[in-house]
């Protein structure tokens, strides 16, 4: 039987870490992820885990310590947010190219500036091309479930890549909500032991890691790394199936909500998906055929599957909680449009930038997006395809 609890998103991650009982956690505090190492270090102090907790002096050091420790053969984790993840940026690539399946709990927060501590996705979207698997979570439950699944996907022999599990700072990281936890023994059995083929502390088989790579070999290494990422899609589904057996909860590459017959739909990431589901239900009650697709895996991006799920939709809004300053939209919009490019018939795509720096998004805000989409459906006039949702505008005054 699962354990009925109420936890914040950060508590849920710390609890998952406790159940996993990793060999090493190296972390540096940054809002809003600070509570994770804080709670976890309490577990360490209380002897509830036998993890080596490494308090470091910066996030660059945190992830560097993680690289060293995972390379040594230890299952290693950390948590960070915003500028912390940005400071890790250099080493994120090192972890990925050395094929070290470290797990990061990434608590999404805007990158400065102007200085802001609230949620948006500019931090993890800035790391999207670093070679890390990225899994996004709507609420505390998904953050917990995804975190437990992430290391199993990451450590799989066909993948061997680090993973970050993302959730919205404060909105879910600090909100206490109901959650169903899995028994310790089941989690322990599910994650198993980390048994890498090669590791630095293997006295029987010494190894060198992180050598200089000349132009004659770098390309082959990157191609091989890309294969690991491709495999992560298949492995994520296998792991999800196994996870369903211990939790009863189903996970896919993404979640399709009332999408089968939808003529207007949105694609969205993290906590606002929940708010958007309420908007969908409200509009469905009015007889409107609306749906949504919630991203779970952003890296690898399951383009084919997403295109298949969306191609019948007439108008689509890709919702980016970050800017990319491409002057034509955000990273999700770009991925969605690329995914649909090969379809003979595909929806008109409007790319919205929304909720930056923690701007609250209400059911009505999402409702207004569907309204916009229906306007396009009715008039056939697409208009500007790169829009800001609920931004104060001179014209609106």
């Amino acid at each position, binding site marked *: 039987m699962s354990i009925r609890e109420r936890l914040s998103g950060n508590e849920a991650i710390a609890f998952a870490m406790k159940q996993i009982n990793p060999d090493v956690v190296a972390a540096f505090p940054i809002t809003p992820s600070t509570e994770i190492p804080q709670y976890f270090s309490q577990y360490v102090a209380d002897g509830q885990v036998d993890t080596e907790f490494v308090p470091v002096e910066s996030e660059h050091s945190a992830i560097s310590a993680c690289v060293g420790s995972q390379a040594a053969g230890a299952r290693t984790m950390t948590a960070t947010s915003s500028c912390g993840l940005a400071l890790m940026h250099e080493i994120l690539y090192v972890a990925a*190219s*050395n*094929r070290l399946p470290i797990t990061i709990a990434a608590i999404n927060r805007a990158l400065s500036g102007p200085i802001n501590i609230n949620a948006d996705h500019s931090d993890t979207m800035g790391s999207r091309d670093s070679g890390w698997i990225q899994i996004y979570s709507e609420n505390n439950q998904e953050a917990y479930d995804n975190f437990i699944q992430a290391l199993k996907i990451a450590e799989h022999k066909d993948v*061997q890549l680090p993973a970050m599990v993302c959730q919205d700072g404060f909105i879910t990281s600090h909100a206490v909500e109901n959650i169903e936890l899995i028994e310790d023994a089941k989690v322990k059995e599910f994650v198993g032991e980390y048994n890498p*083929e*090669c590791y630095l502390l293997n006295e029987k*088989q*010494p*190894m*060198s*890691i*992180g*050598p200089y*790579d000349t132009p*004659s*070999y770098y*390309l*082959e*290494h990157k*191609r*091989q*790394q890309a*294969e*690991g990422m491709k495999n992560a899609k298949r492995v994520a589904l296998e792991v999800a199936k196994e996870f369903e057996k211990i939790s009863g909860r189903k996970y896919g590459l993404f979640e399709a909500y009332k999408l089968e017959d939808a003529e207007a739909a949105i694609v969205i990431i993290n906590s606002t998906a929940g708010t958007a589901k309420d908007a969908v239900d409200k509009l469905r009650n009015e007889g409107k055929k609306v749906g949504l697709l919630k991203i779970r895996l952003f890296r690898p991006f399951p383009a084919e599957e997403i295109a298949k799920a969306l191609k019948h939709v007439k108008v689509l809004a890709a919702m980016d909680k970050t800017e990319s300053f491409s002057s034509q939209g955000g990273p999700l919009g770009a991925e969605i449009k690329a995914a649909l490019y090969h379809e003979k018939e595909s929806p008109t795509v409007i790319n919205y930038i929304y909720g930056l720096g923690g701007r609250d998004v209400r059911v009505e805000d999402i409702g207004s997006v569907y309204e916009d989409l229906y306007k396009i459906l009715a008039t056939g006039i697409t208009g500007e395809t790169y829009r800001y949702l609920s931004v104060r505008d001179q014209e609106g005054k």
Partner: protein
Amino acid sequence: MTNKINIDETISWQEITPGGNVCASGNSEEFHTGDWRTIKPVFIADKCNQCLLCAPVCPDLAIPVKDGKRGDFIYEYCKGCGICAKVCPVKAIEMKADN
């Protein structure tokens, strides 16, 4: 992953080791550094008193020592750095242009 792989420029992305990691030890002898050389040391056996000061300063494996005596240079490994010539007290090593 195999312990020893002879990685050369014909290796495919499927066969190469992840991240260029080397899951083996004692394999630096497989790495021939001799083609970097522009000048080379020449061993003058008649002058050599077998003091063996040269062998430990060689950064690679270019000076073989057997039964307490050094032999001629293994040019496959010699980068031509000239350290051995500098330390030789009896001038038994001369650096010459390598054609």
